[in-house]
């Protein structure tokens, strides 16, 4: 915002309501999937040590170097693709794991901001609006 405005505010442009960013590529799709709970944010504490089971989980995490070998469509390994498949399944689309047009269109439909999947309240930084701890 400019430090000075003319007194009659004529230089202030009231922004017309802006358009929501459309989901067009993998990055925006990934944001969409993590916002609505299809991709779960990784919580390091939880990974290092799961108190309730007393078992260290780090063997679950595939590790950076393993990711590099993952191909598009190879759903068994990529969190993104398995999240995509999840989304396609609940949206009644054909479950391909591919970021195709039908999936893109479904992601761009008007929708509710509450996540689709249970979210873990460990993500305090940006809690979804539905966690009771907000109260």
């Amino acid at each position: 915002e400019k430090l000075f405005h003319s007194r009659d505010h004529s230089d202030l442009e009231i922004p017309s309501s802006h358009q929501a960013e459309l989901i067009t590529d993998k990055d925006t799709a990934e944001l969409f999937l993590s916002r609505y709970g299809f991709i779960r944010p990784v919580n390091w504490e939880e990974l290092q040590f799961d108190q309730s089971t007393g078992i260290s989980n780090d063997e679950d995490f595939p590790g950076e170097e393993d990711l590099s070998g993952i191909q598009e469509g190879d759903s068994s390994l990529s969190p993104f693709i398995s999240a995509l498949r999840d989304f396609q399944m609940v949206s009644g689309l054909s479950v391909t794991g591919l970021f195709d047009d039908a999936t893109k269109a479904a992601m761009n439909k008007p929708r509710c901001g509450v996540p689709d999947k249970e979210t873990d309240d460990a993500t305090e930084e940006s809690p979804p609006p539905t966690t009771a701890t907000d109260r």
Partner: protein
Amino acid sequence: PHRSTLTTTATDRPHQHQNRVASLLSKRRQKRHVGRRAWGNMAFSKMVLKWRLIGEGYSSQLTIQDQRHIISLAFRMWSEVSPLEFIEDTSSPLADVDIKLGFGTGRHLGCNQKFDGTGREFAHAWFLGDIHFDDDEHFTAPNTGSGISLLKVAVHEIGHVLGLPHIYRTGSIMQPSYLPQESGFEINWMDRKSIQHLYGGCKGQFNTVFDWIRKERTQYGEVVIRFNTYFMRDGWYWLYENRTNRTRYGDPVALQVGWHGIPPDGVDASVHVWNRNTDAVYFFKGTQYWRYDDDNDQVFTVDPEGHLYPRLISEGFPGVPSPIDTAFYDRRDYHIYFFKGTYVYVFDVTANRVSPGFPRKITAVFPAVVSGDHPGGSIDAAYFSYTHNAVFLFKDTQFWKVVGRSRDRWRRPALPRNGLLPHRKVEEQWFDICNVHPSALKV
């Protein structure tokens, strides 16, 4: 600071809510999930909830009156299918309001979840708390056929506040994506079960239950006989659609809206005497009774026989005491059965007198099939159902079915005549007969 009221207040009360919610959760937690919160298992612990559309958060697209009316209707729709009642409270301290709603764009109302502008996200909600609508969306009133229906979005978000997650079933109001509004959308059967899973079903006593029969002409001039089932409780009533096993959408309705001239605060009984010679609907209340004029949809002041209404029951039905508890007309033996206390008076309509030998004990005329399983007396409602071709006696939230004269006794000849089969809960046979808060009756 005002603008932040919406959210900070909500956080001000964590402990109070947490206690209530925690108690619920701790019980459930032991049963199902240890260490993880189970979606769909948390609920308000009180049945009457206050809501308010926050003044700073009015939409710029609809009149304030429209916004409040639509949101009030959305709350009422949930009330019609659950024991919850909602009151719009525009005066209590904000901290006492359970559900606060508001419109905003982008960064709004002190919320940590920024809206994304026109398109995609149209609203979000918090468990047991607040609802925000994205005013960059084109919200419209119901049935305008364009834009995003505010009613539909409001019903969806209130579902979240009440504890429901997103549900992917076709036809569910809790689907995450907005589907253009079909005309007359309603909360379907499965969504009703979901909310009743959290808050239980609707229970309550009835003043009377009756089938109202009428003759109609089809477009081909044929006379057909139709009937509707009505449940009455205090000053309001429900039409029960037997085919779809639910009440009519939008019920209950105030008595004076649908039955003109009968006592607006409720009746004791309704009897439809219907045989070859007589077709008369009567309503009983206290010491008087009224006759209803189907054709003019109001009570008679003078009926075709010249009787002035309301009339004393003792005049029209000599030998019958008043007030009565309830009554029903049995087409099979052309008698009206009047109930008062622990006695039943069988009135012979043709002879216009109480049949010899009556009054008798209800337990004698309607003996219990299972010993001890009997309402005893003070029956709330006695109902001859054309759908079930059976008589039911209602008391509190239970009913007893009278042994059918043909089918039941053919199958089990040892059953006593007019015996009462073991009781069941009313809400297990007639579903979703739910109160709404009186303030929502006019919505």
